[in-house]
């Protein structure tokens, strides 16, 4: 049913918080260094803290006309800002550490509303479609759809161009993310966080190390394989294993062998379940021997259960991003630009990455994170080397008709 939120860092401070505690101590120092008076913090921390922690209940997720909503006061000038993001995707203010939203508010004085009501790309699209399709505006100034949805929104003309001249730090964008397939002109989006899709497996169940996508089709694991409902990650990995280049796809025929292979596997009972974000549970309990998964999730899981491993298959894995965009008619463009400039400063980006533990789109973050947490800075899942990056590919941006064919074929297999 849903193509769910692919990113889930660990908001639970469980037994795995050892490095977190060290991090917090050091970050606390750094954090305070960049800030103004504690009193100012306390005052602003109150409101945005509520938003950051109140999750879905504070959502203005009923898109209405900007004028009708009372949530973001102020005109186009930008004394306020409304960013609707995925859950658990930003460092909060806790344990002596000041969250990015609070730091931003303190640094710029902009009244920021941050909500976490963006749970699923398709659900959110269904909500904004009647509004944006009608030419009206939605409440949030910034949203962060996954790359494929960003591509679709750009094609539909439902996004405003970013005022890049107001975002000098955009130059810090990682070179491999400049002018990506989903945003060929690079004018509409700036990635918030990025990650890889690969294979996650439970060593206790498989009994051996896995290295390639073909392992997913190994009859030995029949009925214990999971695959993602996110079409591009699942099909991407399969296509790469068949030697198909996913970054240059233009039609459905090229991808057909991969769809046929997946369908065969499903009919044979090889695949236990197509999952959303909840594959991690099946993986650690042993319901899955292996599954297609996302890098950031496994970083967390592996800490608690050393038997869980993540690999980018030999033939290649997928790379994705959640990109910050301005929905058409967004009111607070200047404030949005300031925000993007703020989070593209390597110092700020480092703090976000250290908590969220996905791959930062900002170059130069690794050195900053090393100051906070040297172990984390060495983690290849967070800071992949050149060779790994070369093995990941971004799925091509499909035209509306071709995308419909892919979606239909995939749904036929997932059984929907």
């Amino acid at each position: 049913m849903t193509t769910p939120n692919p990113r889930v860092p660990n908001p639970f401070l469980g037994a795995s918080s050892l490095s977190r505690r060290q991090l917090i101590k050091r970050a606390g120092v750094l954090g305070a260094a960049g800030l103004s008076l504690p009193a100012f913090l306390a005052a602003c921390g109150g409101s945005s803290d509520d938003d950051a922690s109140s999750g879905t209940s504070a959502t203005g997720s009923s898109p209405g006309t900007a004028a009708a909503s009372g949530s973001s006061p102020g005109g186009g000038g930008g004394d306020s800002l409304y960013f609707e993001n995925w859950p658990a995707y930003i460092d909060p203010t806790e344990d002596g550490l000041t969250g990015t939203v609070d730091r931003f508010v303190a640094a710029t004085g902009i009244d920021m509303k941050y909500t976490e009501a963006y749970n699923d790309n398709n659900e959110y699209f269904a909500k904004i479609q009647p509004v944006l399709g009608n030419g009206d505006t939605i409440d949030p100034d910034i949203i962060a759809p996954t790359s494929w949805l960003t591509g679709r929104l750009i094609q539909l003309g439902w996004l405003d161009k970013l005022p890049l001249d107001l975002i000098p730090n955009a130059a810090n964008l990682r070179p491999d993310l400049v002018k990506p397939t989903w945003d060929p002109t690079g004018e509409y989006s700036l990635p918030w966080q990025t990650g890889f899709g690969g294979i996650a497996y439970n060593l206790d169940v498989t009994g051996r190390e896995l290295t390639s996508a073909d392992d997913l089709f190994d009859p030995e694991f029949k009925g214990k394989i999971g695959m993602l409902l996110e079409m591009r990650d699942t099909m991407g990995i399969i296509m790469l294993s068949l030697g198909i280049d996913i970054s240059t796809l233009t039609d459905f025929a090229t991808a057909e062998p991969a769809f046929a292979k997946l369908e065969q596997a499903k009919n044979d009972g090889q695949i236990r379940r197509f999952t959303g974000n909840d594959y991690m549970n099946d993986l650690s309990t042993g319901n899955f021997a292996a599954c297609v998964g996302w890098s950031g999730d496994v970083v967390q899981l592996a800490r608690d259960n050393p038997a869980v491993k993540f690999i980018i298959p030999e033939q290649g894995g997928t790379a994705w991003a959640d990109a910050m965009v301005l929905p058409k008619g967004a009111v607070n463009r200047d404030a949005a630009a300031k925000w993007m400039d703020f989070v593209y400063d390597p110092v700020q980006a480092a703090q976000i990455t250290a908590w969220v533990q996905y791959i930062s789109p900002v170059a130069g973050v690794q050195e900053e994170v090393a100051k906070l947490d040297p172990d984390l800075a060495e983690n290849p899942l967070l800071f992949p080397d050149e060779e790994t990056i070369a093995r990941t590919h971004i799925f091509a941006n499909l035209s509306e008709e071709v995308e419909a064919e892919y979606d239909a074929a995939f749904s036929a297999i997932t059984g929907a």
Partner: protein
Amino acid sequence: MTATIETEPGTPRARSSGTGRTSWWQRHPQRIGLGSLILSGVLLIAVGTGLLDGPLAIAALFVVLVAIVALIMVAVMGGLETRRALAPYGLLNPGMLWLALFYLAPLFTLLRNSLSTLPSRFAIDAKFDWNFGNYADAFTDFQDQFIRAFLYAGIATVLTIAIGYPLAYVIAFRGGKYRNFLIGLVIIPFFTSYLIRTIAWQSMLADQGAVTSFLRTIHVTGFLDTIGIMDGDKLLNTPAAVIGGLTYNFLPFMILPIYVSLEKIDVHLVEAAKDLYSTSVSAFRKIVFPLSLPGVFAGTLLTFIPASGDFVNQLYLGNPNTTMIGNSIQDQFLVQNNVPLASAMSFVLMAIITVFVLIYSRFFGTDDLV
């Protein structure tokens, strides 16, 4: 057994108007009642579907108000017989009009959508053009899901009767003064969220979960595998798990109506029967069971129908080969953004269910649908 109050339309029996003459509206109160109801309903539907809007909508709403007021006036001014004749319409009005506006109107919009074509995948307005192709697609592309949905729902319904009837019977006849407490206990688990209950089953049926471990300990997994309930040593992500989930989640919908009809059976009837018949079983078969049939009937409707359209159980407990039509409709709406096809599929589902229900009620011998 019911003593219905017969109303006799057409007989000039209005008396209390004082004058000797009877107006036509006093002679045909039923027509006024039904007419008012239908008129209000149709106008509300028209407003709801957007057929009438702006000043026309306001005019329509005004007419609805007038119709309701007229009904009240006729009831007040007419005599006792008129009131009796109009009473059912008065009782029905609020509920039915609510349904008319908030159910029928959207349904008509949906019907219109099902016969439309989208100019492009993400367009928000479908063009109405009598496109029956959507229905053709609905029939041909989703046969497996339709069949599975009805199969699973059917098995689940039978299971709920098998489990629920004895429980309802015991509570109704042997509950004594704890009856209300016990029937309350039956429904209380369902004050937690549907989702949480299904997730709980997901955890209990997992490969290392409570239920599966228990089955392994008593060595029945091989047997269950042979008869198809388990798949190897897996209980989760099998058709059995989906059916189990459906059975569980709809159990109170079966228990409650059966209980309600059992509870009002006069115990003396049963005792008298026992004096005449020698066994409890006969008494049950000839007295209790037939009297409980309305409850079983209602319960079957309340279970089978929603279960056929369910998708949550399949989502958490099933595998890609057990999907039901509910998942497909969900997918068409949310992922494929194909509203016309999704609407057509919904109508096909509704149509098939209605046919089942009609056949079922004929078989049951009940004289009307509900």
